[in-house]
């Protein structure tokens, strides 16, 4: 026959498909597969008489397969016979056991494998309670019976053998595996007629078959744990260390994180934050305030831990410790997350600052040397629970707290000068304060989706607490050289107790109509109660005496109501929305010298305004996006600004409140366009913005020309505005190897303020231009360079001789190279130039950081790194600030050059790459 087959030619395969009783099966699918890999080469169907014919087939061996609904797929190997036609005769198909079909396919919705006589069950589809053994799982499978003693029967026959992954499991007792293995470990259960042990040993098939159950174990890839530890020692007594550990399976995540250093790293790096919080890192839907942005009431607090989104270490010298644990549970229906985190920072700030103050037709300068030693510690427990009651209802409960305590030592020596360095006054200050606070934010959120798609209802209720206690010892010696009558020595004790309670609620209802329209109606409510009880005592040798001028009790109730409605049109990527809301504020303040006072002064303010909101979001084809929004933001005055209280804790700088303040508002418009072409990697973005202030709260400065004492008082001013535009363009110079980015921005600012009751307008123009070059020629070398130039021009309407031009430039380079033997090198250079003509300031700050590291240990689990921080010792902690009527330059003694040797151990292996991480 083989010989004949080789003579070639094509052949026809035919036959008749019937059931076991011989009845023909029309329209059955017949298929021919290649035996080596089951590749489908031909297929056809039986006709009304159950007859099929596959013509023009190559002479070869095939697997012939027939499929018919309700029957077990039929399979046999066929070899072409002599002649043009090979007739397979009648093929009898067996009815698929109804039980099998109903249970496995219909109920468990699991695929069923049939290989000859082997039936395979997908164990995942059969739910057993956690902690169940394989025995419990087998009881659930169709055709399987397990008696009280654990004896197993399959299709009525006793199961003689249970194997695990095809191998014997601790001896021959089938119960060994079924009683001991957990059901969760099983991926598949196969039931088949295996050869007897006898025939396996002898290699002679005795034709006898025993019922065998094979258990296929799960790949435990969904379970895991990893940890990381870093320790470093440096010159200048620098130390740093960090430990993290994670453990997770498909439902649970557990994480530990701890770090300590004296290298100014106080925040949690973003990656560490994400590893710590896991699936709870970002919860976008946890905002209980519904409705559009305009006129929205914000009450942000840093109660929860936040990732550090970039930026270097803090200024000064800080010593930091932090640590915590996080646990998440998520089974899709119920999500539970709890965490606890503690952090503490001790900061030493040595600050030298010089300020130039502009008066109506004059100016004066002041110098201050101050040192602050501060300690602060925060405990942060957090809790979040989310339950999907059913597919339409969800509740979320969140409770986060922060318990804070700290102290501050503040020493300062301040002097003010006028005209060629003549000292007018000087002040020596020594303060000490101790404080503690407790803040808590609770939110209950309910969301309901209606059966009608797009119709939604949501309600939220929240209660926030923020209480603080502070005891402050203030002492200062103030000397006025021109007016010695004003000389004073102040010794005060200031005890302040403040409490805040905030009850909030929100409702939202969205109704879809006319297919492409959505109508949202929302209501926001907030009731905030603030109480401040401040007792100030003058301390002298004779004891302490209440200072009636500074001792104060006040309470403030702030009620906020917003009702609004908006209509949105959504179709084909275009989302157009317009809405209007009414906002009502009510402020009720009362204050007196003491809590027990019989007579309170009262401030009652009520304010109503309409806030519009219009927005467009247009998702255009081919990665282009257009957006614009107009809104009006309204903000109430702060309580301290409203209280007619004089604060002279700094005798040279007195602040005073203003009970006549009304809420400030800002009209703002922004628009932008983004595009990205993935084929040639070109991207472009542009944006515009405009803001106009109405009743902006600014501080009117009154400077006593004689003694240079400044008094500030908040007032409402309308008219300040700003507008600006920015844009960027990125393109490859050479695909995948070199990319160039350009960006530019222009901003114009008009600021209004009052100095000695004369309006002063500050106009600032600023222009920025930047460029970035990424060179990634190979996996062994990369260069990332950037350059930015900024120019700003400030003009004052009074005191025009103080007009100033500031030039800023930054040049940066980041070079990475891979050497032999897993040695890597990194250099980061940052060069900053700052010029201010007015003050003859010309500063150049080159900061260079170098590091070299080597990957060590088996599976690249370790890394040794040598770092040189600020090689040129140029980190001087200088900042400049130009404001409406003063210019300040601050120098903070800051952590500068040090060398550090560190070691990292990472269970998952250290990934060293010269490439920057693009994320995903």
């Amino acid at each position: 026959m083989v010989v004949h087959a080789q003579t070639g030619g094509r052949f026809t395969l035919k036959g008749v498909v019937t059931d076991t009783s011989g009845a023909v099966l029309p329209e059955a699918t017949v298929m021919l597969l290649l035996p080596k890999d089951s590749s489908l080469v031909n297929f056809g169907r039986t006709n009304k008489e159950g007859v099929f014919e596959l013509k023009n087939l190559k002479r070869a061996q095939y697997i012939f397969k027939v499929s018919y609904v309700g029957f077990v797929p039929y399979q046999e190997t066929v070899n072409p016979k002599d002649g043009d036609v090979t007739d397979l005769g009648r093929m009898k198909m067996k009815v698929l056991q109804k039980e099998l079909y109903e249970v496995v396919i219909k109920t468990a919705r699991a695929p069923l494998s049939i290989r000859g006589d082997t039936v395979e069950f997908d164990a995942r589809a059969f739910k057993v309670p956690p902690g169940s053994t394989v025995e419990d799982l087998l009881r659930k499978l169709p055709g399987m019976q397990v008696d009280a003693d654990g004896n197993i029967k399959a299709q009525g026959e006793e199961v003689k053998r249970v194997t695990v992954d095809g191998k014997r499991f601790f001896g021959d007792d089938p119960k060994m595996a079924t009683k001991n293995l957990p059901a969760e470990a099983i991926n598949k259960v196969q039931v088949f007629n295996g050869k007897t042990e006898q025939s396996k040993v002898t290699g002679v098939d005795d034709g006898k078959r025993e019922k065998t159950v094979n258990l296929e174990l799960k790949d435990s890839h969904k379970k895991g744990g990893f940890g990381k530890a870093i320790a470093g020692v440096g010159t200048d007594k620098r130390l740093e260390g960090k430990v993290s550990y994670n453990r997770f399976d498909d439902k649970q995540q557990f994480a530990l994180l701890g770090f300590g250093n004296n290298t100014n790293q106080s925040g949690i790096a973003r990656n560490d934050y994400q590893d710590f919080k896991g699936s709870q890192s970002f919860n976008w839907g946890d905002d209980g305030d519904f409705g559009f942005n305009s006129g929205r009431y914000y009450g942000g607090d840093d109660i929860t831990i936040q990732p550090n989104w970039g930026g270097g270490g803090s200024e000064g010298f800080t010593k930091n410790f932090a640590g915590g644990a996080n646990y998440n549970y998520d089974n899709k229906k119920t999500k539970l997350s709890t965490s606890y985190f503690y952090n503490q920072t001790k900061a030493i700030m040595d600050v030298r600052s010089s300020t130039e103050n502009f008066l109506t037709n004059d100016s004066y300068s002041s110098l201050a040397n101050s040192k602050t030693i501060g300690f602060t510690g925060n405990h942060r427990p957090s809790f979040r629970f989310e339950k999907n009651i059913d597919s339409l209802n969800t509740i979320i409960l969140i409770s986060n707290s922060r318990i804070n305590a700290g102290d501050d030592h503040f020493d300062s020596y301040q002097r003010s000068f006028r005209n060629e360095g003549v000292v007018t006054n000087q002040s020596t200050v020594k303060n000490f304060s101790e404080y503690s606070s407790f803040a808590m934010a609770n939110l209950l959120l309910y969301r309901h989706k209606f059966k009608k798609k797009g119709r939604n209802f949501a309600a939220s209720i929240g209660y926030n607490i923020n209480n603080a206690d502070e005891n402050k010892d203030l002492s200062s010696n103030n000397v006025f050289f021109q007016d010695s009558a004003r000389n004073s020595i102040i010794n005060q004790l200031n005890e302040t107790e403040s409490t805040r309670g905030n009850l909030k609620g929100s409702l939202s209802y969205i109704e879809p109509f006319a297919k492409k329209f959505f109508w949202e109606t929302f209501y926001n409510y907030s009731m905030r109660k603030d109480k401040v009880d401040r007792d100030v005592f003058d301390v002298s040798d004779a004891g302490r005496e209440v200072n009636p001028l500074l001792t104060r009790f006040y309470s403030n109730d702030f009620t906020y109501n917003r009702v609004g409605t908006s209509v949105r049109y959504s179709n084909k990527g275009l989302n157009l929305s317009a809405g209007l809301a009414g906002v009502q504020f009510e402020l009720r303040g009362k204050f007196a010298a003491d809590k027990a006072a019989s007579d309170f002064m009262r401030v009652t303010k009520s304010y109503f305004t309409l806030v519009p909101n219009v927005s467009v979001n247009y998702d255009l084809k081919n990665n282009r996006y257009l957006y614009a929004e107009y809104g009006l933001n309204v903000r109430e005055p702060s309580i301290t600004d409203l209280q007619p209280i004089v604060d002279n804790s700094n005798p040279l700088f007195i602040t005073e409140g203003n009970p006549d303040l009304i809420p400030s508002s800002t009209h703002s418009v922004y628009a932008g366009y983004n595009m990205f072409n993935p084929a040639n990697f070109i991207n472009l973005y542009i944006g515009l913005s405009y803001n106009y202030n109405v009743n902006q709260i600014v501080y009117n400065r009154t400077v006593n020309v004689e003694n240079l004492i400044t008094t500030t008082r908040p007032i409402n001013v309308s008219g300040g505005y700003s507008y600006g535009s920015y844009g960027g363009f990125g393109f490859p110079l050479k695909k995948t190897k070199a990319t160039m980015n350009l960006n530019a921005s222009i901003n114009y600012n008009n600021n209004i303020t009052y100095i000695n009751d004369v309006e002063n307008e500050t106009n600032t123009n600023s222009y920025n231009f930047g460029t970035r070059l990424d060179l990634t020629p190979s996996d062994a070398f990369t260069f990332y360079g950037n350059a930015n130039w900024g120019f700003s021009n400030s003009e004052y309407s009074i005191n025009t001789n103080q007009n100033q031009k500031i030039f800023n430039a930054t040049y940066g380079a980041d070079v990475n190279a891979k050497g032999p033997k897993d040695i890597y090198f990194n250099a980061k250079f940052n060069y900053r130039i700052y010029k201010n003509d007015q003050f003859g300031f010309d500063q150049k700050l080159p900061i260079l950081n170098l590091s070299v590291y080597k990957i060590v240990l088996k599976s690249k689990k370790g890394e040794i790194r040598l770092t040189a921080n600020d090689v040129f010792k140029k980190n001087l902690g200088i900042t400049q600030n130009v404001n409406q009527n003063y210019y300040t330059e601050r120098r903070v003694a800051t952590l500068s050059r040090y060398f550090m040797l560190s070691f990292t151990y990472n269970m998952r292996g250290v990934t060293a790459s010269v490439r920057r991480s693009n994320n995903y």
Partner: protein
Amino acid sequence: MKAVLISILLLVTVVFYADAQKTEGEITYERVFHWTRVYSRLSYMSQEEKDRMKLTWGNDDESKQEMLLIFNDKQSYYSYPKVETLSEGGYSWTKEEFKSYRDYENGKMTDLIAMLGKTYLIEDSLQTFNWKVMNKIKEVAGYMCMMAVTEDTVKGQKITAWFADNIPVSGGPQLFGGLPGMILELDVNDGDIVTTAKEVKFRPVTEEELAIPKKLKGRKINHAKYQELMSTHIRDSIKAHRNPFWSIPY
């Protein structure tokens, strides 16, 4: 025994009766995309980055899209549903052009696909897939399906299709077909992206529904060119440490 026989007879008659119309109608699919699983296959990401992504987003990484296949025994048309399904929040996002016409009678394919920032019109003869038919059955949308597997060498994907041999049309979702029956579920890389039939509705289909519109706008290329564009882009993106799946229909 008698009951079984009767039920078999009944089944046969029902099947036979139904078969008369089982060659035209529409199938609504739901395409579920697990992006953390897809992105985990990016070779330039470190294990640490992959774990972090899975831990952070892995529980909530599904994106769903409804798709519609209209077919008769000669032709089929696969694209988004005629009425736009808005996202959960009711916002509308532009869907990248994706229209797929198949002419089984004349062995022709016409696809209009937006990728790499352009819209391409891919015209060629029907592509054949090297399907391997396996010994597994399961039910999808009330139909018993057999399993067949193949590989997409350009995208490096393992494709598992479940086809119903009693819907005798060699069509399917996405760009797949060529099996003895309609593909009712298509699984890419063991669950990364699963397109499953939710509803199979047999109804008379008019010619206009399946006709290729004359004004299909796109850059004309053949299937080989399409594959070349795809593989060049994937190679370049991986080299540039960029996610290639942002800009191609994955």
